[in-house]
């Protein structure tokens, strides 16, 4: 596997050459500072560009072309990476060896068609396809909180980040959607092409000269280059006392979410120790939460913690019965204290290292894994595989105990469901 990064002034071209796959994968990433309005705009833009293009005016035309290109895949994804919003267009298609000569080139040209040749009439997106995309997104927004878990996550974030933009999440907001017209979205689209930071990732058995030429010819990105800022979110103020919020809803299960904000961490803590801490606390079947809450007290089916090295936070989620809330919270607090006191099997540090050795190897089995590795390296300076291995080896019990002293509960959120066992009827 060979990695080549080319600075093409307006965009970075990252080429990962490997003969391992029967496919070629391309991700074209646009990023800018994260805002609430941007969530809806960027999702709608993704929908519109995949709904209609200049030469393929209906979604059916686009999908027929995908099928003709031997089931090539084209999709978009809009996500937050710390302070930044990332709109990613993905393409993957089979090598010519498995299709016919010229198929790969055609697929790249089709990706170019999707991103750079939208269906524009009089300086705005064509009305019918624009409305259709708007309806698709409207339905996605409306049903986004249909399950109690997703509803709880949304409400939790509102309480966890009350005055910050990070309380907002995908796929968007109806009040913002209403404001967007075919014209304003087109203006936004042009500003994306002109001012977003752009990174293009290509992974597969490709010729880098050919790829470079192909992109030079067709990728009309005119970004004026400026320095990108850090993606990392710094928590300005930390609470001394946890905030407790309870909502009620007619659901069968209650969802408990606990959020901890972390102070500014060192790079080592952020990249390595935080993940180890979360692994010991709520990473898997060995973890203290799984053992204490599920196995010893039979209080839940799922319980886990996730650490975000970019957002500087740690979030715990459990599905429980409303009557066991107090007991569960006290067991969670007890588990957190145990880590601080070093009361956890040291063997877990070794298994964390081994699990990560596995993860590092498995990354190399998937084009998306490989691209994400280089994307994260570019965006949030995560280490590449060799460095990761070296650094992880150094992790100690003391690192974890010290980290534990930084983890303080900020928000406890409960979505309280009220049904008794007799009332539960999944049919």
């Amino acid at each position, binding site marked *: 596997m060979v990695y080549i990064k080319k600075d093409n002034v307006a965009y970075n071209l990252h080429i990962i050459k490997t003969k*391992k*796959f*029967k*496919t070629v994968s391309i991700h074209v990433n646009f990023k800018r500072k994260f805002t609430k309005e941007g969530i809806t705009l960027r999702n709608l833009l993704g929908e519109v560009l995949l709904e209609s293009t200049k030469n393929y005016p*209906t*979604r*059916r035309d686009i*999908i*027929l072309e*995908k*099928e*003709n290109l*031997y*089931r090539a895949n084209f999709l978009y994804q809009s996500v937050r990476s710390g302070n930044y919003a990332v709109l990613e267009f993905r393409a993957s298609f*089979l090598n010519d060896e*498995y*299709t016919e000569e010229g198929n790969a080139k055609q697929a790249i040209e089709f990706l170019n068609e999707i991103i750079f040749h939208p269906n524009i009439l009089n300086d705005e997106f064509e009305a019918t396809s624009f409305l*259709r995309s708007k*309806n*698709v997104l*409207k*339905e996605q927004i*409306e*049903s986004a909180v*249909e*399950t*109690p878990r997703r509803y709880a996550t949304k409400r939790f974030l509102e309480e966890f980040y009350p005055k910050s933009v990070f309380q907002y999440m995908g796929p968007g907001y109806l009040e913002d959607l209403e404001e967007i017209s075919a014209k304003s979205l087109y203006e936004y689209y042009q500003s994306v092409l002109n001012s977003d930071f752009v990174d293009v990732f290509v992974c597969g058995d490709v010729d880098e000269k050919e790829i470079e030429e192909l992109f030079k010819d067709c990728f009309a990105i005119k970004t004026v280059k400026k320095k990108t800022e850090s993606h990392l979110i710094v928590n300005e103020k930390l609470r001394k006392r946890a905030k407790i919020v309870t909502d009620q809803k007619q*659901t*069968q*299960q209650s969802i408990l979410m606990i959020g901890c904000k972390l102070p500014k961490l060192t790079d080592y803590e952020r990249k390595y120790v935080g993940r180890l801490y979360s692994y010991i606390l709520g990473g*898997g*079947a*060995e973890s203290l939460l799984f053992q204490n809450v*599920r*196995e010893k007290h*039979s*209080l*839940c*089916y*799922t319980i886990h913690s996730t650490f975000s090295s970019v957002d500087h936070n740690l979030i715990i989620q459990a*599905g*429980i*019965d409303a009557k066991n809330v107090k007991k569960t919270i006290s067991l969670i607090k007890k588990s957190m204290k145990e880590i601080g006191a070093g009361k956890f099997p040291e063997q877990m540090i*070794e*298994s964390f*290292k*081994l*699990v*990560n*050795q*596995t993860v590092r*190897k*498995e990354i*190399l*089995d*998937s084009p998306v894994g490989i691209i994400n590795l280089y994307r994260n390296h570019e965006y949030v300076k995560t280490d590449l595989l060799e460095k990761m291995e070296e650094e992880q080896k150094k992790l100690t019990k003391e690192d974890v105990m010290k980290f534990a002293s930084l983890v303080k509960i900020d928000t406890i959120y409960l979505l309280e469901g009220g049904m008794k*066992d007799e009332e*539960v009827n*999944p*049919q």
Partner: protein
Amino acid sequence: MKKLTLNKLDIDLFQETLESGLTVYVAVKENSNRNYVALTTRYGSDTVSFVPRGKKKMIDVPLGIAHFLEHQMFEMEDGTNPLEEFSKSGSDANAYTNNSQTCYLFSGVHNILENLEYLLKYVSEPYFTDASVEKEKGIIIEELKMYADMPDTVLFNTIFQNTMKLHPSKHPVIGTIQDIKKTTKEDLYTCYETFYHPSNMYLLVVGNVDPKEVIEVARNSNLNQKHIKDKHEMIQVKHYDEPKAVVKKYEKKTLDIVLPKIAITWKFNLEHKSVEEKKKLNQYLSILFSSKFGSSSLCLENLRNERIISDILYLDRVPIDDYLLYMMVGETKEYDTLLERIKTEMKDITISKEDFERKKKVLISSYIYMSDNVDSIAGYLDETIYYYHQVEDNWYQFLKELTWEEMNEMIKTIDFSHYSVVVLESK
């Protein structure tokens, strides 16, 4: 050891049936770091009436017991937890139960043979106590409630209930709270002794392994050695004279959802078809439904133009013994109109030759995509092993030889008159 080469893919497949009746399949993918290992028993939630091994009389057991048993297999006499044993080598282990299979699996990079030995050991050592069974009830009930809160669970449970009259697939895999509460240690042992006999199981390994070593480990395993001298015994399970007709042709329920959902499920009886015919019909029906209602269909385009639906129709199929259920799910307020349109479209069950050829190209391409990923390879192999009791080494050729003319002939023999409609209306 029988060797097959999967045509067009760089995968060799080895197969051997051991003395105990356990069949081992090993697919070698040399360029993979990840390995996937799964031990499956041909026993799932559909089996609730059978003659226990060594007995003569048919008994009934509580619903959901296959799933309960899966949970209890993780109880060990020495108090260890199998999931933890796997994570000691950085591997990831799991298990699942569906209507016809219970599967114990792990994936990883290191210590594959040692882990395989352990897998075959822990699944061969049941250890259930009254206390462990009681403890597990709380966990499983929380799992049930988690699913019961998901609208899709309600939808699919209703579909099966309204489609199948006698066959136990009409019940949810997990059972009901009442069944979970009445399950005993004795029930679990009875099911274990009957269905976890190696002659009712198969082992599938996919990855960069030496097939000889894998088969050697399986041969020396506890699971094989314990049963070498067993007499071959056919398991008698209750046969259901499932009628061709559905139970309820139409049902509407109200639920706390934003957008109504509609599901149309066809019930196809395939009892007089040969294995070869079933294989072909599976493909032809997929081509038919995807051409008629898939994202590149004219019908969907028209439905979107008229704003009857905004996004797509989800298509899925579930084989149940002699039956094949084919389902289509849409989300729309205009579900009555959608239903009428689907009925009208189904009056003509032919498609154009051009559509057929394009869909065939998509099927062949999907087969090649599949071969880049060990989990997808395992999914494909598991399906052919489970349903056809053999591995198809020339699937590529099989797909190539499908013809439009044959499709028209075969589709004509299918009765499309039995279908059931479920609507989930929003409150």
